[in-house]
C-alpha cells in the first residue's frame, strides 16, 4: 500500500479549475432572482474543492491505495464476517432496471422490485424459520430497534386485549410513549457478551437493559437468567452462536423460560453465517430475527456501509411489521404495497437499502440451500482449524469447538512478554493481514476475535496462523518504534485526535 501522504482534495483545489460539464438543456435563460426571492439566495458559494477530473481521479485512486480490503487479503475481523463477495453482485446492483427505479414510481413501474423483495423474503423466512419480513432497516442496529419496537407493540396490543380495550389499529402499533407502562414489561435481558448495539437499541426502544453474565462454558448463565426473568421482561435478546463463537446449547431451555414468562426471544442474526441450513432460529424458539445481509449475504461492507438489516418475525408478530410492504395482490398476478393492520409504522425514508437486498437475493440464488449450508460448514471448519492451530501459542478461554469464529486471548503473552492484544493486532497489519477484532467481547481479557470466514483457503489460514505464531514468539522492546511500521501511516495518535478535534479541512 501507498506510504507517504496524500493532501486533501481541498488542498489540491485551485480556484477556477473544473471537472464538471453539463448537457445543453436549451431552456430559455432567466435570472435566478426572478425565480427565487433574493433573501433566500446565498451570498457566497459553499467552499468545495475546485479540481480537474484528472486531479479528482488521481486523488481518490491514491487514497484507495492507502486502504486495506477483503479483495487485497484476509480480513479475519471477528463478528464482521468479512468474506469475499462474488463480483457478479456488483453487476446485479448496477442493472439499470434495478438501479434507475424511482422509489415512488407507481406500482406498474416497479413490479420487478416488488417481486424481488417478496422472493428474498420467502427465501430468508425459509432459511431462518420465520413467517414474514421487513427490509426497511438499513443495518443491523436499525433492525434491532425495529424488532424491539415490534416487541413493544406486541406487548402493548396484548395488554390492551387482555384489558378488553380496543386492540389493533395504529395506536397499539405505534406503541406510544406509555406503551410499556401499560404492558408492565420494562426490561430486555441481554448477555454480557452482547454486541454494543444490543443494549443501545434496547434503551432507544424505551426498555431497560438487564445484563446476565456468561458462565464458564462461555454461554448464558442459566441460573442467572432464571433469576432475571420475570413478568417485567419484554424480551430476551441473544445471538446464537454468541459473540464468543459458541453455540448456546441451552437455547431450548432459554426459550422455554422466556416464553413461560410471556417474554419474546429476539435473535441478533449477525452470526448467522455459522448455521445456514444447519439449524434455524425459528426452530430454536426465536420470535424475532434481524439479519445483517452485509455480513452473511455477501454485500461487501463498503468501508462501513451500506448494510441491510431485515427483520423477520414469526406468525404472531406479522401484523406489526413496518409498512408499506410489498405483497402479491389478491389476484396472484400483480404485486402491490400493503400496510399491516397494526404496523409500527415506517423505519426508512423509502423501502430500505434496496440494492443491497438485490445483492443478497443474487447470493442466495448462486448458492442454493445446499451451497449455503456449505458456506456455514466451511466457515466453522476454518474457525476450528485456526482455534486448534493457535491453541499452543495463545490462550483459548473456552475449551470446546467453536462455530464460525474463535476468541483467543493474549493475556498470557501480555504478562510474559509484554505483548497486548493491540500489539498483536498492529503487528499483524505489518504482516499483510487485517487484524482480528480486539477487546471484544468485553468478558475476555486481551481478546482477539478471529473470524476467518469460509472464503479463505487453507493456505491463507496457514499463512495467517504462521504470522500470529511469529508475533507470539516476539516481545515488545521498550524503545523500539511500535508496530505497524510498513503501513501507509505508522501507529496513529488517537488521543491527539480527540484532544485537538480537527474534523474538517
Amino acid at each position, binding site marked *: 500500500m501507498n506510504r507517504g501522504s496524500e493532501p486533501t482534495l481541498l488542498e489540491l483545489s485551485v480556484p477556477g479549475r473544473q471537472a464538471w460539464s453539463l448537457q445543453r438543456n436549451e431552456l430559455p435563460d432567466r435570472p435566478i432572482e426572478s425565480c427565487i426571492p433574493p433573501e433566500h439566495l446565498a451570498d457566497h458559494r459553499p467552499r468545495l474543492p475546485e479540481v480537474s477530473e484528472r486531479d479528482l481521479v488521481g486523488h481518490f485512486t491514491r487514497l484507495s491505495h492507502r486502504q486495506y480490503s477483503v479483495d487485497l487479503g484476509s480480513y479475519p475481523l471477528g463478528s464482521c464476517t468479512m468474506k469475499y463477495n462474488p463480483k457478479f453482485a456488483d453487476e446485479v446492483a448496477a442493472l439499470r432496471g434495478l438501479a434507475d427505479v424511482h422509489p415512488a414510481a407507481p406500482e406498474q413501474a416497479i413490479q420487478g422490485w416488488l417481486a424481488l423483495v417478496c422472493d428474498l423474503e*420467502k427465501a430468508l423466512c425459509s432459511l431462518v424459520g420465520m413467517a414474514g419480513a421487513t427490509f426497511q432497516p438499513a443495518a443491523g442496529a436499525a433492525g434491532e430497534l425495529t424488532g424491539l419496537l415490534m416487541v413493544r407493540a406486541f406487548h402493548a396490543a396484548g395488554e390492551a386485549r387482555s384489558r378488553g380495550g380496543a386492540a389493533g389499529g395504529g395506536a397499539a402499533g405505534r406503541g406510544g410513549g406509555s406503551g410499556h407502562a401499560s404492558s408492565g414489561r420494562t426490561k430486555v435481558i441481554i448477555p454480557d457478551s452482547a454486541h454494543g448495539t444490543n443494549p443501545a437499541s434496547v434503551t432507544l426502544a424505551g426498555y431497560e437493559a438487564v445484563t446476565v453474565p456468561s458462565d464458564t462454558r462461555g454461554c448464558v448463565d442459566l441460573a442467572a437468567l432464571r433469576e432475571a426473568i420475570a413478568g417485567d421482561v419484554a424480551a430476551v435478546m441473544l445471538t446464537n452462536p454468541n459473540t464468543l463463537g459458541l453455540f448456546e446449547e441451552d437455547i431450548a431451555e432459554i426459550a422455554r423460560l422466556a416464553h413461560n414468562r410471556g417474554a419474546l426471544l429476539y435473535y441478533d442474526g449477525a452470526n448467522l453465517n455459522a448455521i445456514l441450513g444447519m439449524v434455524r432460529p425459528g426452530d430454536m424458539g426465536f420470535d424475532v430475527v434481524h439479519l445483517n445481509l452485509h455480513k452473511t449475504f455477501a454485500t461487501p461492507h463498503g468501508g462501513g456501509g451500506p448494510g441491510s438489516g431485515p427483520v423477520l418475525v414469526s406468525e404472531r408478530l406479522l401484523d406489526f411489521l413496518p409498512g408499506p410492504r410489498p405483497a402479491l395482490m389478491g389476484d396472484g398476478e400483480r404485486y402491490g404495497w400493503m400496510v399491516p393492520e397494526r404496523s409500527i409504522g415506517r423505519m426508512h425514508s423509502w423501502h430500505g437499502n434496496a440494492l443491497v437486498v438485490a445483492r443478497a437475493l443474487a447470493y442466495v440464488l448462486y448458492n442454493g440451500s445446499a451451497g449455503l449450508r456449505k458456506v456455514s460448514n466451511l466457515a466453522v471448519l476454518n474457525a476450528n482449524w485456526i482455534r486448534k*492451530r493457535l491453541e499452543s501459542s495463545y490462550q483459548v478461554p473456552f475449551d470446546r469447538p467453536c462455530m464460525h469464529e474463535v476468541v483467543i486471548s493474549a493475556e498470557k503473552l501480555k504478562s510474559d512478554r509484554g505483548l497486548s492484544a493491540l500489539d498483536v493486532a498492529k503487528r499483524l497489519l505489518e504482516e499483510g493481514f487485517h487484524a482480528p477484532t480486539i477487546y471484544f467481547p468485553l468478558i475476555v481479557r486481551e481478546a482477539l476475535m478471529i473470524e476467518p470466514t469460509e472464503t479463505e483457503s487453507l493456505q491463507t489460514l496457514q499463512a495467517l496462523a504462521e504470522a500470529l505464531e511469529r508475533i507470539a514468539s516476539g516481545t515488545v522492546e521498550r524503545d523500539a518504534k511500535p508496530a505497524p511500521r510498513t503501513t501507509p501511516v505508522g501507529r496513529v495518535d488517537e488521543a491527539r485526535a480527540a484532544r485537538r478535534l480537527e474534523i474538517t479541512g
Partner: protein
Amino acid sequence: MLSFLGLRTLEELYSAIPEALRLGAELELLDGLPAEGLSETEVMAWMDGYARANIPVGRSSVCFAGGGAYDRGAPSATRSLAQRSEFVTSYTPYQPEVAQGVLQALFEYQTTVTALTGLDISNASLYDGASALVEAIRLAVAVTGRTAVLCSQGVHPAWRDVACTALPAASISLEMLPLRDGATAWPTGYGDAGGVPGERPGAIVVSYPNYLGCLEDIAAARRLADETLAILIVCFDPVAMGILRSPGSWGADVAVGEGQPLGMPLSFGGPYLGLFATRMDLARKLPGRLVGKTEDIDGRPAFVMTLRAREQDIRRERATSNVCTNQTLMAITAAIQLGWLGPGGLAEIARRSAVAAHYCRDELCALDGVRPLVGAPFFDEFAITLPIPAQIVIDRMLEEGYLAGIQVPPELNTGSDKGLLIAVTERRTLAEIDGFVAALAKVIC
C-alpha cells in the same frame, strides 16, 4: 483439515447443537431454485428478469418525480472511483493504519457537508434523511432535556412517519405544525393566545425547501427556537445549497438531509445517505461515526475515528444512538461527486433546476384546469392542482413515457387527491419539459 481437528465429518463440527434442533431435510428456498444453486450466468438472467419487470427512469420514462429522491446525473468518474474495491470491500476503519483511504475520504466528506450546511461538524453519515432526522431529535432531547418536538408538516411525510415510529418509545412526542399556502404557520408568541399550548419544545423541525418544494421562513423558525430555547433542526436539500442560504446561515443548530442527489442512483430508495451536521459545541452528542485528523508516530498527517466514547460499542445502554454500520460508501460517493461538481457545478445544477422548474410550472399552469397548489416561492419542485385525481394522471402519464410526479398527500392538500408534486432537475431538457406539458394536457382532458 478435518483430520487435523480429529474429526471425520463436517457434521461433527456441530456437535454443540442439540440433535432435536438440527435441520433434517433440504430447505426449499424459492420455486425453481435447485439446492445446489445457480451459475453466475443463470443468476444474472434471473435477476435481469426482475429488472425487466420494472420501468426505470430514462428513455422509457422521463422522470419528473422527486419527493426526496431525484433523477440527477453522476459522471462515470464518480461511479468508477466509488466502485474501487478497496473502498467497496473494506470494513469500518477500526485499524486506522491500514484504512487511511476510507478515513481520509470520510474526513473530506465531513468537510463538504459542513461547507454545504454552514455548520461546524458533520458525522461520517447516517442511513438516510429520515434516520438523520430521528438522530437530530434525539440529540435535541438529550441537549435540552425536553421531549416535546414541534415539527413542520412541510417535513417529508415519510421522515415524519419514521420519527413517529421510532421516538415515542423513548417518550418523545411530536406535534405537527400545519402549512398555510405552502409554508409553515409558525406560532408567533410561544405560549401566547396565538401560539401552541403547553410544554416547551426541545426541538423545532423545519424543511428547506419543504416537501412541496417551498422556501420556508427559517428566520421565523429561528425566532421561535430562541423564544423557547429549543434546538432548531433544518432539513435541507444538498443540491439547493448551490444557490440557497445554508441552514447554518439561517441559524440552524442541526442540519439533516438526504444525500442521494449527490451521485447516487435512484435505487428504488436505497442505499441513500443521511447527512447530519451540527454546531461544534454539540460535538460530544453527535450520533454516528466521526473522523478526525491527527498524526502518526512520525508526525505525518493521519486520520482516525474519534470521540469514539459516544458510540454504542463503548457506551452501550447509555448511548444516545445505536448506529454502527452506516452508509460509508455513499458518503465517499458524495465526496467524490462534490469534488467533481465543485462550487461552480453545484451552483449551476441548482440554478438550472430552479430555472427549469419555474419554466415547467408556468407552462403547466397555462393549461386549462391546472393551477399552482400553493403560492409560496419554491426551488425546483412544486405542486399543482389537477382537474382529476393525481393517481390517474400518474398512471396515464406512465403510458406516455413520463414519471409524472407524486401525489401530494391529502393531509397536505385539505384532503384532496388532486395535487401532484413535480420535480424538475438539471437533467430535464426543454424538449422533455415541453413534451411533458403536452402529454399532461392530453391526459387530463
